[in-house]
């Protein structure tokens, strides 16, 4: 059974692109959510093998969603990679404080993203 990635972004364009990369360049399955709150719910329901999540989103941002997932037993151990336009060190630090495992900046390089996913999930 192939591994499952939860891709979270409020941008339809980013979601479309990241989904295309996952589904066409890897063997993983993809499920999506369009904000942090939906991501927390879907993570509980779908139990993905990895979460790839934007930071700036309506209803609940990526940092808060990351914290919530870390508090819940069913999602505590899932690797979380945050994706954002902000590359400052303080911002990245806030990401790690929220419990993420990795942090990548936009614009996302597709090849780098695939390599990162494979480093967590294997080929």
């Amino acid at each position, binding site marked *: 059974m192939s591994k499952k990635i939860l891709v979270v972004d409020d941008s339809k364009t980013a979601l479309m*692109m990241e989904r295309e990369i996952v589904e066409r360049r890897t063997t993983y399955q993809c499920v999506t959510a369009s904000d942090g709150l939906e991501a927390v719910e879907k993570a509980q329901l779908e139990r993905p093998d990895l979460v790839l999540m934007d930071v700036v989103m309506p209803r609940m941002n990526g940092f808060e969603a990351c914290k919530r997932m870390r508090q819940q037993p069913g999602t505590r151990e899932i690797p979380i990679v945050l994706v954002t336009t902000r590359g400052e060190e303080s911002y990245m630090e806030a990401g790690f404080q929220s419990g993420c495992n990795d942090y990548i900046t936009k*614009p996302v*390089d*597709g090849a780098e993203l695939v390599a990162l996913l494979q480093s967590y999930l294997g080929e």
Partner: protein
Amino acid sequence: MNGDKHTATATKSSGAGMNDLRLEAARKRLSESSSQQDAIEGLREIVANFVGSEEIGLFKVERRAATFKVYWSFGIDPENYDLLRSLGEAGLQRVMRGECHVVLPSRDRGAVVRVQAFVPIRFANQTVAILAILRLLPQKISFDRSDMELFKLLSEEAAKPLFGSSVHSMPVEGPGMRA
């Protein structure tokens, strides 16, 4: 302003296959827009996520007054932004002819000239609007070949989703307009 202006050429690509996916996603996002407002949001998302900029202006060419009108902007104050000053007369002529115009980062009498791109939005062989990308995110230094391919796609395919049926009444008089 004497930044190193030219019609951009390739510097590097992040992989042809990945770039095809990016172009396909951009095309799909624009063509599937449910309204002009959604197409504008799509354009913002494409520039933010694929190019790496959050300072954008879209200037519609106004035929009768021979000027440019701010159609939409994000991350800039359009009242205090002078399109022609950034673009220059030569740059304007290129863009009106349908060429993408890129300003590479440089220094002009001590002042920093930022990387910028001006993309003609074309319809029926006319430039009907100019997309100005005015600053890149700090982690991105300059434009690359894949950005140029994306600009070409926007130039050729964005007019109808962005302007809807009004695009048919948007012919222009050519370069030499006032910003």
